[in-house]
């Protein structure tokens, strides 16, 4: 208990138009191995941006969306991401979709709701290779953490108050796992319910905890898109816990469903 706890070493870079923040503690925080792992993680994110960016007309996803190429012409990661999106669409009853209506009404392929969490989880694999080192990696507010030893303090994750992003509305300690939040606080209404094409009503933000950042991110977006049904839907997902902040500032904590016995 009396051991001196040093603050974690921190790094920030900007990739995909987002701040990527890393905190490291343990054996490799500021040496060659730490720097190499950080660069490898950033390289994974830059590659994901190159393949999946809907802002780049020459990206695989843009060309696929225009029907110029098929999935077999793309890196296998494209099939993986589309499959995750389809699975998410299925289990959210269509609230989450990898297509959105374009300006002319035609469907536009946009798997952005899958790519972010998925890419950051892949990037974290480079950090998992660091021996005796705990990490927490965040991309614009969605993050994944690792803690190797049970007696170490958990990472303490602040959940932003959607009504005032300078404040926190909750804290969740996480040893190993992911936290993702979906809401409109910083970018306005960019998430819509795919069934109606309209932004959700009644909900300000949804935070989801899961083992995998890919699924935490997908489920946070899918729950948020469902507006007043966000908490009810999250409760149907085994193993999920999270926090729903409603438009009036009230909150609902969704506890994980624990296996019996």
């Amino acid at each position, binding site marked *: 208990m009396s051991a001196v706890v040093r603050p974690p070493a*921190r790094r*920030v870079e*900007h990739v995909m138009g987002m*701040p990527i*923040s890393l905190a490291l503690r343990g054996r490799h925080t500021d040496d060659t191995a730490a720097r190499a792992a950080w660069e490898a993680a950033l390289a994974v994110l830059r590659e994901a941006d190159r393949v999946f960016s809907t802002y780049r007309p020459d990206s695989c996803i843009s060309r*696929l*969306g*225009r*029907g110029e190429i098929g*999935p077999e012409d793309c890196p296998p990661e494209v*099939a*993986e991401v*589309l*499959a*995750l*999106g*389809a699975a998410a669409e*299925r*289990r959210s009853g269509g609230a989450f979709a*990898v297509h959105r209506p374009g300006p002319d009404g035609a469907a536009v*392929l946009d798997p952005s709701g899958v790519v972010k969490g998925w890419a950051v989880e892949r990037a974290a694999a480079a950090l998992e290779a660091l021996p005796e080192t705990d990490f*927490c990696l*965040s991309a*614009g*507010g*969605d993050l994944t*953490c690792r803690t190797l030893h049970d007696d170490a303090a*958990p990472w*303490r*994750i602040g959940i*932003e*108050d*959607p009504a005032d*992003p*300078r*404040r*926190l*509305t*909750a*804290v969740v300690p*996480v040893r190993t796992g992911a*936290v*993702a*939040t*979906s809401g409109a*606080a*910083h*970018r306005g209404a960019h998430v819509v319910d795919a069934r109606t094409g309209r932004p959700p009503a009644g909900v300000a*933000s949804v935070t989801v905890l*899961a*083992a995998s950042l890919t*699924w935490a991110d997908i489920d946070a977006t899918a729950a948020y898109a469902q507006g007043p049904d966000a908490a009810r839907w999250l*409760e*149907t997902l*085994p193993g999920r*816990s999270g926090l729903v902040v409603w438009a009036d500032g009230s909150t609902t*904590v*969704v506890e*994980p*469903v624990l296996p019996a016995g």
Partner: protein
Amino acid sequence: MVTAVRRIVLWAMSTLTALVLVLGYHTSTSSQMASVESSVLAPVSGSTSSGSGSSSGTPSSSGTGDGTSAAAVTVTGDRVQTRWGPVQVQVTVQAGEITDVSVPQYPDDNGRDRQINARALPILVSETLDAQDAGIDMVSGATVTSEGYVESLQSALDEAGL
């Protein structure tokens, strides 16, 4: 900029209020779910995968895209091994636009879902809470862009560690 960020943090510190530990907030819905959890995530259609096992994916003959228009073309990609299991994707293109993405075989993340049970710790809810006094390592929130980053709590935390 740094000064401005610090000021925000200091200001937030003055509004710290007590934590409320939310425990045992099980709703009747969530306790009922425990007994039926295996059925909740059961694939609805088009997949034969379950648990860690997987059988070779025979594309379902749902006829996606067929018959709606002569111009619709459905392309089936190769089966790809992912860390969640084998995946196969079908994309239907009509008049130069993707009209459907279906997945004859998709991964099942049940195993990973369950891992979090032992690791999820209580969420502490407070009306207002400051990042420094609460000893926060990272902030989770709606996506912060690079433009908005400098004013964010996360940037204050990152600055503090540099």
